[in-house]
């Protein structure tokens, strides 16, 4: 529909206002990550919106190269938390995607596992905090506490609903003619799935995997409860970067926050098209 000129002016003004609100928190963190310690807590007239003397020392600090004696060395650098976040998120995604894709195909094509949709929605519904006591007990029993594989397992289960629902809508939308042709050619059902369906679904699979990865990477609460020292993830480590001796390590936290924030934002922009389906459990088609 054609819109009037005043409307266009209003539209751009409103969008620019929304963008300003969207970007200020992000830009403040970016700015903070590159500020030297002297500018961290400048206030009033001295408040600097952009670092006057940009520095990489915050990044060097979180990786163990402290240039400032004021800051007491940490027990370990951010390297292991980053590794922990990566390993648990990647393997969690692998678990969720393999179980979820297989189940989605089973339900979409053969009607197996009719109970799964409801069971998986319920899994998503409950506050993680309300179901963590038995999980903490089980993980302690299985010696999975404070390990990245323990995190990967619980991440795989927690994000299984998203993997399942996304893949199910993708399979439901996929035309079956090619599969049927292959069946007529004498392919077995399993072969059709692994050799024809999955390769055709490469792009949707990649989108779903990125989506699940973002969710796993974003966790804070589960890692907070299930890791204590060895395999804490980036957000848990970030939160611990303050003490009575050093106070808030603003710059170091911001640098770490930036490291944690960048991958999901890039991935999210890459899979924008599928976000609606993923977040509404496929209830909306786009």
């Amino acid at each position, binding site marked *: *529909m054609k819109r009037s000129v005043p409307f266009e002016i209003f539209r751009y003004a409103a*969008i620019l206002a929304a963008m300003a609100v*969207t970007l*200020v*928190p992000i830009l*403040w*963190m970016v700015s*903070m990550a590159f500020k030297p310690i002297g500018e961290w807590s*400048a206030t*009033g007239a001295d*408040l600097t919106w952009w670092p006057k003397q940009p520095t990489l020392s915050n990044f060097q600090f979180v990786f163990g190269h402290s240039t400032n004696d004021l800051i007491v060395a940490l027990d370990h650098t951010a390297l292991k938390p980053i590794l922990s976040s990566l390993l648990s998120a990647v393997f969690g995604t692998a678990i969720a995607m393999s179980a*979820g894709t297989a*189940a989605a*195909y*089973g*339900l979409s*094509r*053969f*009607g*197996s596992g009719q109970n799964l*949709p*409801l*069971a*998986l929605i319920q899994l998503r*519904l409950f*506050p993680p*905090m*309300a*179901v*963590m*006591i*038995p*999980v903490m*007990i*089980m993980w302690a029993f299985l010696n999975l506490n404070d390990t990245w594989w323990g995190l990967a397992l619980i991440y795989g*289960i927690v994000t*299984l609903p998203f993997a399942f629902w996304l893949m199910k809508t993708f399979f439901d939308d996929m035309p079956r003619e090619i599969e049927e042709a292959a*069946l007529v050619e004498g392919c077995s*059902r*399993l072969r059709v*799935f692994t050799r024809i369906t999955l390769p055709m679904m490469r792009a949707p699979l990649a989108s779903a995997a990125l989506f699940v990865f*973002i969710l796993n990477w974003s966790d*804070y*609460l589960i890692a907070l*409860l299930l890791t204590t020292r060895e395999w804490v993830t980036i*957000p848990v480590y*970030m*939160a611990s970067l303050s003490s009575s001796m050093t106070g808030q390590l*603003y710059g170091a*936290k911001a640098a770490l926050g930036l490291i944690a*924030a960048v991958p*999901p*934002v890039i991935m*999210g*922009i890459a899979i924008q098209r599928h976000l*609606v389906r993923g977040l*509404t*459990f496929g*209830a*909306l088609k786009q």
Partner: protein
Amino acid sequence: MSAVTATISEDEMGARTKPATPDEGSRLGFRLTLPAQILVLFISAFPLLMQLYISVTDWSPLSGAGWWNAWEMWNSFANYTDLAADTRFWSALQRTAIVMLVCVPAEFLLGLALATLFADEFPGKRIFYSILLMPMMVVPAVAGYMFFMLFQSGGPVNDILSRIVGTPVTVAWLSDPNLALIAVMIADIWQWTPLMFLILLAGLVGVPEDQMKAATLLGANAWQRFITIVLPKMKTIIIIALAIRVIENFKIFDTLYIMTGGGPGVATETISVYIYKVTTQDLIWGYVAAIALAILIVLSIVAVYAMKRMAQAREVPA
């Protein structure tokens, strides 16, 4: 496997796919869903029973006995009656409700307004769209830290306010019991308005344009078109969007906990924060299990309702 179930699934399969041999299909389908079934069972059935069991005891990880010996600390339903009298629990619940009643409508209205602006094509749409979606992809804990910095008394929020009013503003947002809750809600609105925007926009572009044109020809103004055509068409999508945010907002933890730790005092202590504190600081796990179960039961009722709506939505062609 019994012959009866085999026959039923054969019939079902026959209707679904023609060239396949039905047996092979149902066997493969069963095997494909097996891993997911096992994972769901692993994380639901056994833990739920364990939770139920612990909730009727005084067991805690400090009690010296393994959880399986918790029956020695049997206290029947004392945890549940304690819960009814636990004022800290009820005020946490109340606070969760306040946050939800402010944030979800605010996110909805802002998201709807943005979606309306994005309903048709205009130069720069794609790039604006990508930027406006960014907050929901920022790790919530990191978002919490962003807002922690923003709301420092010498931080940018006060700086902006100072410039607007002309005199230095030094409000201690996060250490004032009333303002802390507002700061937390602003962070939630910042992060989740994009989700509302995204979902509602998907619904808005599905509204048929010819109907809108016809209504315009008949003399309906924008507001009338919105009320009579757009809203009814989007009813299901709106319900889904609200349901998702209500569910997620109820769990609010990461952002809030990083910003305030539930404080000052208990000023921003929501249900999740309360349970977290009782779990990790007070360590009375029998009691936590009772709280958690009570919440699960209430939420299950919501779940059934939400599922019904979602099932209906899938039948509506978008």
